[in-house]
Every structure is written in C-alpha cells, then in structure tokens.
C-alpha cells in the first residue's frame, strides 16, 4: 500500500491488525492446555483468521480506491487476489473441522473454533463484495459532473472508511478477545446504514436530473450496497466475538 494513496481519514497506517504477540490477553484460548498440540493448533488457527482478515481489509480499501481513482491496474490486483481469499477460507474451514474431530473441544474452545469458522465465511463474503466493486472499477469510465461515482465519491469514501474501520475493529476484537471493541463495531453499523441512505438519496436526485448514466448509477448503487453489506459482515463477526467470549463475561 503506497503511502500517498491511503484513504484519508482512515487509520490505514496501522496495518498491524494481526497483533499476535499473545499471552497478555485475558483468557487466551491458545494457552494453558495440558496438551501443547491444542495450544499450538488454536493459536495457529487464530493467526490464519487474522491474516485472512488483513488481506480482506486491504481488498476492500484497494477496491474502493480503484473505483474512486479509476485505477484499472489496482482493480486487477484486487481481482487476482480473490483466489487467495478463497484459499484461506477453504483452509480454515477444513482445519477447524479437523480440530473438532480430533480434539473434541468443549466450552470456550468450542465457541472459539465455531466463531473462527463463521468468521472465515463472513470474510470470504466480504472478499466477494470487494471483487464486485473492483469489477465495477474496471468497467467504469468517463467523468464529468453527472458521473454518479464522482457525485457520491465523498459518500463512497466515507462508507469505505467506516466499513474498513468496522472490519479492522472486528478482526482485532477477535484476535484480542476484546468484547468492548466488538460492541463498538456493532454501534458503528448504524452510522454506516445512515450514510448509505443519504448516498442513495443523493444518487436519486442526480438520476432525476440527468438520465444518461443509468447503468453507472445502478452500478454505483450496488457498490454502495456492497459497502453497506461489508459493514453487516463486520457486524456479524463482532457478534461471533461476543458469542465466543460470552461464557467468560457476566454482563455481555
């Protein structure tokens, strides 16, 4: 990620979502089992999920940047990394299943493994959404005052920031077992939805004024919707985190 292309206002400089110098975290599930194999497996699985999260976050940010800057090369990069996202998902899916079969986890371990599997699924879907946005970025051309992408660019940008922040927060909450952070993500979703509604209204007013860019407008709507959905996926991940931690906190 080149420094001058960071989305303004984001905390993109902090790319270290995968802060796994673990051990200091409350109730670290990757520690303390009599069987070191279990400790290692859980830690490794979690690291995989966090790495996948990092990749997917970057996909989202890059896809939106490609759209806003009409950067088809960046869009291609995003599309070519999509198989990697799927590969992560497959691997996590397979290995969580194996872990359950071989180690028969219960209680917090079981919740964690389940949360891992579902998080992988959500992240994979986020990857799909970014792919769609990147495809749109490839197709989109033209500029001008009535280009819907230009018209809602601030909304796109802001929604991208929001959803990326939510994603990052959710993944970090997962990695660190931080329920407070997870709750913050849940709260953010409302903001994202409001932003989406405003962007839609803006688009509708443009369309009523100038009907040349119907296709682009529709695509833009989908892009906005995609970002909104990404926020929903982040919210789901945050909910998984709360479920995973549920047994340890008295007031969830």
């Amino acid at each position: 990620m080149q420094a001058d292309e960071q989305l303004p206002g984001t905390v993109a400089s902090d790319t270290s979502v995968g802060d796994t110098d673990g051990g200091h975290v409350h109730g670290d599930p990757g520690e303390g089992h009599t069987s070191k194999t279990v400790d290692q497996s859980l830690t490794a699985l979690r690291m995989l999920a966090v790495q996948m999260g990092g990749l997917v976050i970057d996909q989202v940010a890059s896809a939106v940047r490609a759209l806003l800057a009409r950067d088809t090369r960046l869009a291609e990069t995003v599309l070519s990394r999509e198989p990697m996202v799927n590969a992560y998902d497959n691997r996590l899916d397979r290995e969580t299943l194996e872990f359950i079969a071989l180690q028969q986890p219960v209680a917090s371990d079981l919740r964690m493994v389940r949360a891992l599997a579902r998080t992988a699924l959500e992240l994979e879907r986020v990857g799909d959404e970014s792919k769609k946005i990147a495809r749109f970025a490839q197709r989109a051309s033209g500029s001008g005052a009535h280009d819907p992408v230009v018209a809602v660019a601030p909304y796109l940008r802001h929604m991208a920031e929001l959803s990326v922040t939510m994603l990052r927060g959710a993944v970090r909450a997962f990695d660190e077992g931080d329920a407070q952070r997870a709750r913050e993500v849940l709260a953010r979703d409302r903001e994202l939805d409001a932003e989406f509604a405003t962007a839609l209204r803006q688009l509708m007013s443009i369309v009523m004024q100038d009907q040349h860019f119907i296709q682009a407008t529709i695509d833009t709507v989908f892009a906005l919707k995609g970002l909104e959905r990404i926020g929903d996926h982040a919210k789901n991940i945050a909910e998984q985190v709360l479920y995973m931690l549920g047994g340890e906190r008295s007031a969830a």
Partner: protein
Amino acid sequence: MQGEQTSPSAGPPSVSITVEDRKAVRANAPKARAEALNFWYGSNQALKGINLSIPEHQVTALIGPSGCGKSTFLRCFNRMHDLQPDTRYQGSIMLRPDDINLVGAGVDPIEVRMRIGMVFQKPNPFPKTVFENVAYGLRLRGVRNRTDLAERVEGALRAAAIWDEVKDRLSDSALALSGGQMQRLCIARALATQPEILLFDEPTSALDPIATAKIEELISELRQHVTILIVTHNMQQAARVSDFTAFMYLGELVEVGATSMIFTNPGKKATEDYITGRYG
C-alpha cells in the same frame, strides 16, 4: 501486515499448524511390519491375517470393540503370550532395520522384550524405591556403575516428565506416589532401557482426567525418541494422541490410515459405524 504485499499469485502464507504436521507429510519408514500374522489361544484363533505397518517415530493407535484382538496383537510385539501355555503364532512381525521376525520360533522372547518396552493398564511399579524401579531394567542388562545408573535413571525420569516431582524422593517407596505419578514412573522404567518400540496397553484407563491429560501429552512428546503403539478403548484418546489409527474387529484389521482422515472421513462403513457409535 506483510501478507498482502506479496505477489498476487502466492498462496496463503505457510503457517505451520500442528494439525497439518501430524499427518505424515512424507511417508515415514516403518519401524515394524506385521505380515499375515495369525495367533491362536489353544484352538481359538484370536488374530486373522493381520498386515500392518508401524511407522517409525509416530504414534499408532489400535481401536476396536472388546474382544477385537487389539491387546492380543499388541502383546505379540513383546512375546508376552509366551508366558501362557498353549499359544501359537503364525506369520511374522518384521523389525527394522535388522529384519528380525519378532514372533519367529528361533527368536528368543527375552531378547525381544529387551528391545520392546511395555506400559500396562494398571500402574504396576515394583514395591521398591523410585530409583530402584527405574534402575531394575538397567541392572538386568549388567549396568553396575553407580554413576552410570544415576545418570540414566535421571534421564529416564526426565523423559517421563516426572523428574521434578520425584528428584527429592528417589529413596522413597514407589507405592507412595499418586496413580498418575506411578504410571509415569512405569513409563520411565520402560524408557530407561531405550526400547525401540514402546507399547502402551490402555495406559490411562485407570487414571483420572488430569493424570490422563498429562500422560497423553507425554506420549505426544515421546514420539520423537521412540516409536509408539497404543491400544485404547477410548476413541477420543486415539483421536487426540495418535498419528495413525488402525481399526480392528473380530481379530481382523478393518482399516488403517492417518488419524485425521479416519476421524473425519473413514473409508469403510464398519469403521464409520464404530466411530460414530452405531454398533448395530
């Protein structure tokens, strides 16, 4: 985060996950191989044509319902059946690398037992001191020098993860230890003579869950020093602890494979039925 900066065609970064490591990435050479092994108690045939490879430095588990012959098969490896009257072996268990047939008529059972160790179901330390328990096998082999003995006893106790608990109690009676400690002492006793294969006959069925967990962890670690064959009627233990699992039924070997495969997607229906609890 470095992951996303790599070239687009790179796969997911190679994070070593033990779940994956436990599958034999490259085929391990077998330490022993049973070939067409048959066994009779009197006129009753307890093992029927067993063909099984035991890979070196791996844990192989034998599972199956009561009476399937898993303990019988295990005890062929160290000729314990020779202590009973009217038993008969047929076929072979070839031990690598010298290609000796462990159940061959011309092979001395005492010699076999000096190369193959065993840990039994109920902890059975001798009513001697902790030190003497571990040293007994060494004395049988003619080790007399006190320093040698002390060194090797300490090594064995460390390998069995019990040194810290007994280092100040070496002259105390072994019977004063708890059940889990006694079993680890028995493991140390078997390890002292550096066996090539270590046999475990349901080693934790008489122990509480904490002691069981410690011993399972120990078995996992011992794998790098010695080949392990374990009989267990607890399938979940086989899943947790072993690299390869063999399912036996009515004296025959039904299926053998990597543990992760057997417990997620076994090949034979009989195996699947047993594992999922459909005993019919």
